[in-house]
């Protein structure tokens, strides 16, 4: 635990904005600690029914028939909705149109559901779901991506399993490897990781008058849900209203997965004409939600004796599961970033997305990168060892900086704090001393220190394929209070609080007078998804845009009130000043009301254009965030147990908007890295999940928390709100490989699979002893 007092790197002064940059208390803190925050399962509606899904439980099969009659015979069961009941299109594919809401003729994984049972209680609905007769004929299935790529593998969809291929070609790798004095080539494997948000997926669909429907639910992307429900019910978007409820964690797991559950509940509500609640059990959530893609990554790196990288060749194979879901976007990101955050003149990357009969894989904090980061940052360490150069020095020698070019040939012109993250992580962790002293350990417990550095393209990027703009609606009431609606979601990360700060400082209104709502799609235009570290950037800029418009109209009234020129009017801290006088923000709001002046405004922000050609060259993302983690471990060389003792997390965030919520994001990310690095692997067997709960799928507890030292670098981004850029993903990215590198430092053994479990370490140590 670190002492976070007096740590604000930019102590506010008179010229600083009053709220941005300060540790403003979360606006939702009191509701959450007093139990008054209402999550979707806490809500109820008159005449509400409960739904449960019917899972055939086979990984690959012809679906020959679904007979709901035994379920319908049970008293208290109201309806069973099947694919034939879908009034619109039976399709919820987010990018590719390859995923039916309910399969009609073929089941492709154990999470496919073929019917929705509606009953008086959730328990009755689940019992009745078991009574639905499902007739299937099993087909040969494939559970491994490399196997699925072979021509003789069972085809999950018609037309082969390799459905995605992203290439990056820069320079000439043959020439680059010829120039190299040393080449390191290795293959790495990672597996399914579960988001493990504490609140399972859930929704309530409420039929409304006039042929409309309202969907309440836990979600990151209400506009995705709106589209999915409209498609399935055959309704115009204007008749589907989605209201996000207080959301108990997301981490990417509630990006597209809510589409399915919400559309199922919507279908059931449509069929019965009554509100229908559908909440997943934890086990259903494991089966039905997306995971982090298992990847195998072949990584070949060439370097000169002086440490300069000359060429890199990378092949990534990602298990997309049964449907493509978000894989086209995730694997694009993996491909674009696969080299790691280094300037390398010659690059060849091929990244493949492959169908298997396993759980679908999609967004998870880091979005396809943590797997390739494990490969690149392990190989960089091995290269350092081979060249006899310190791992920190080797990174500093090759890392991206202003004026350098990424693997996609993008020239970085601003906001590149990567070198500082490496230097600060080195200095704060006391790397140089510990790297030497830990290596001298020779007892049963050996210590190790390891590093990982990353870059992350903020927002959706060139192959995001989705809307990359966001809106905001600001309404100033006559008493000066302000209500704000945005299209970006709060899922725990602190968006509502940070937007209050941004709004207060850009509008000059008192922060206590500002209220930000959870998303309602009927209020704000489609603002894209809350993913990819884009929400503070996009919604923040949209709020600033609306505030700027409001100040222009309100400023004219204020100028009149103060007898000043409109150009001289300043809004700050609840007061409007000009011409030597001042009035309160509320006075101006009231005067506008009296004069029939509109005090509501719409804001909009669209991301700068990005490009990625067929050779993977272009300005893939508008801006990048950077981070370096240094991890320290103790390894018990008898048992193999690893204790993560300290993590130094250095992040370039553009600008700190709220130090305490930022630190919260980083600490949570560090622990998710610990999970990926040391414990978490969702295991499957013939398509069944053998770890479908938190007693077999182990996530870190309070007992596993290392000492965490957060360090912030503020390399301002000219287009970010107050100079900020995204922070959501990066804390969950560099840590797992930093831990693996620390274990290598402690034991002298390199690991090519994550997680590095106690069993793996013990086995490797005993194998070494036997040699």
């Amino acid at each position, binding site marked *: 635990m670190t002492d976070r007092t007096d740590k604000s790197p930019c102590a506010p002064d008179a010229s600083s904005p009053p709220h941005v940059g300060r540790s403003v208390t979360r606006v939702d803190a009191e509701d959450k*600690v007093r139990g008054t925050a209402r999550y979707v399962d806490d809500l109820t509606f008159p005449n509400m029914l409960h739904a449960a899904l019917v899972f055939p439980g086979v990984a690959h099969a012809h679906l020959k028939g679904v007979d709901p009659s035994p379920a319908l015979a049970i008293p208290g069961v109201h309806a069973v909705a099947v694919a034939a009941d879908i009034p619109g299109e039976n399709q919820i594919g987010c990018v590719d149109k390859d995923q039916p809401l309910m399969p009609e003729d073929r089941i492709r994984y154990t999470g496919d559901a073929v019917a929705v049972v509606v009953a008086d209680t959730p328990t009755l609905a689940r019992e009745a779901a078991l009574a639905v007769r499902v007739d299937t004929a099993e087909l040969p299935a494939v559970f491994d991506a490399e196997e699925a790529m072979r021509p003789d593998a069972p085809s999950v969809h018609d037309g082969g399993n390799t459905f995605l291929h992203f290439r990056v070609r820069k320079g000439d790798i043959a020439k680059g490897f010829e120039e190299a004095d040393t080449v390191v080539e290795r293959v790495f494997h990672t597996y399914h990781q579960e*988001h493990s948000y504490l609140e399972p997926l859930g929704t309530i669909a409420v039929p409304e008058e006039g042929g409309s429907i309202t969907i309440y639910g836990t979600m990151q992307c209400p506009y995705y849900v709106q589209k999915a429900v409209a498609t399935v019910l055959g309704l115009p978007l204007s008749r589907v209203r989605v209201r996000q409820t207080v959301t108990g964690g997301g981490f990417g797991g509630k990006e597209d997965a809510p589409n399915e559950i919400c559309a199922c509940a919507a279908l059931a509500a449509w069929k019965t004409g009554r509100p229908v609640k559908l909440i997943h059990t934890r086990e259903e959530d494991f089966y039905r939600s997306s995971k982090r893609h298992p990847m195998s990554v072949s990584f070949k790196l060439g370097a000169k004796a002086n440490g300069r990288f000359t060429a890199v060749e990378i092949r990534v194979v990602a298990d997309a599961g049964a449907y493509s879901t978000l894989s086209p976007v995730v694997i694009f990101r993996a491909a674009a970033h696969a080299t790691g955050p280094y300037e390398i003149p010659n690059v060849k990357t091929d990244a493949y997305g492959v169908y298997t009969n396993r759980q679908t894989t999609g967004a998870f904090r880091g979005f396809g990168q943590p797997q390739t980061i494990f490969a690149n940052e392990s190989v960089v360490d091995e290269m350092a060892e081979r060249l006899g150069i310190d791992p920190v020095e080797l990174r500093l020698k090759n890392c991206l900086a202003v004026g350098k070019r990424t693997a996609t040939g993008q020239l970085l012109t601003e906001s590149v704090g990567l070198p500082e993250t490496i230097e600060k992580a080195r200095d704060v962790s006391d790397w140089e001393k510990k790297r030497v002293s830990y290596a001298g350990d020779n007892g049963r417990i050996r210590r190790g220190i390891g590093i990982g550095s990353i870059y992350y393209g903020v927002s959706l990027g060139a192959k995001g394929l989705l809307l990359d703009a966001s809106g905001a609606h600001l309404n100033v009431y006559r008493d000066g209070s302000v209500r704000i609606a945005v299209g970006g979601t709060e899922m725990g990360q602190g968006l509502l609080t940070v937007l209050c700060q941004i709004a207060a400082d850009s509008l000059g209104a008192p922060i206590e007078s500002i209220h930000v709502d959870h998303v309602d799609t009927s209020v704000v235009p489609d603002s894209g998804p809350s993913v990819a570290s884009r929400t503070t950037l996009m919604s923040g800029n949209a709020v600033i845009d609306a505030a700027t418009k409001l100040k222009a109209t309100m400023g004219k009234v204020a100028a009149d009130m103060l007898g000043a020129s409109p150009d001289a009017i300043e809004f700050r801290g609840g007061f409007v000043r000009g011409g030597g006088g001042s009035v309160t923000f509320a006075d101006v709001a009231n005067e506008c009301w009296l004069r029939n002046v509109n005090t509501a405004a719409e804001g909009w922000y669209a991301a700068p254009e990005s490009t990625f050609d067929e050779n993977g060259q272009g300005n893939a993302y508008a801006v990048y965030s950077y981070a370096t983690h240094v991890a320290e471990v103790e390894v018990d060389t008898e048992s193999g147990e690893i204790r993560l003792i300290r993590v130094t997390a250095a992040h370039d965030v553009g600008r700190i908007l709220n130090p305490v919520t930022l630190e919260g994001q980083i600490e*949570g990310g560090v622990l998710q890295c610990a999970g990926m690095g040391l414990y978490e692997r969702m295991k499957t067997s013939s398509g069944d999940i053998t770890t479908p*709960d938190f007693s077999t799928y182990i996530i870190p507890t309070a007992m596993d928390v290392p000492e965490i030292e957060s360090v912030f670098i503020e390399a301002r981004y000219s287009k970010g709100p107050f100079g900020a850029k995204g922070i959501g993903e990066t804390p969950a990215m560099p840590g797992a490989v930093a831990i693996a590198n620390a274990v290598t430092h402690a034991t002298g053994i390199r690991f090519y699979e994550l997680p590095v479990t106690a069993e793996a370490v013990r086995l490797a140590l005993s194998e070494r002893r036997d040699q």
Partner: protein
Amino acid sequence: MKRSITLNVNGEGRSIDVEPNETLLEVLRERLGIKSPKIGCERGDCGSCTVLLDGRSMRSCLILAVEADGHDIVTIEGLSKDGPTELQQAFIDNNSFQCGFCAPGIVLAATELLARNPSPTEDEVKEAISGNLCRCTGYDPIVKAVLDVGSGRARRQRSGPPPREESTG
């Protein structure tokens, strides 16, 4: 066959008829409308449904309602009728929670700890909440809030100058 039971929930006697297989969690949420205990796993793994049963933290998903007949049950609605408790205020001040889904369980587990042990060490706090999963925060600000209350109490209980803050980092 329904059974009639009486639960003393947040200081108020509530008599209801329950099925013998209904859990305390189901009865609190669905029959009594007390929504703060959350359903995170329904098998005792996550701690989101924690309540205090006669002052001891328990997973309400693992107790049948009939087993709680005649006992005192406290949920966080019952902790804070007159505003946040000292501990809840410390959680607010430390921005301890993010998504908040784990908060009701952790507030109660920590409340029990402080009732038993008013000035716990960092390790004792971590152990007390180790059965409550949180995926957002990294636990650090949660532990810090409990320690803040603990050290504040220790300070008030002792005479003389306040003890030096224990260095934890």
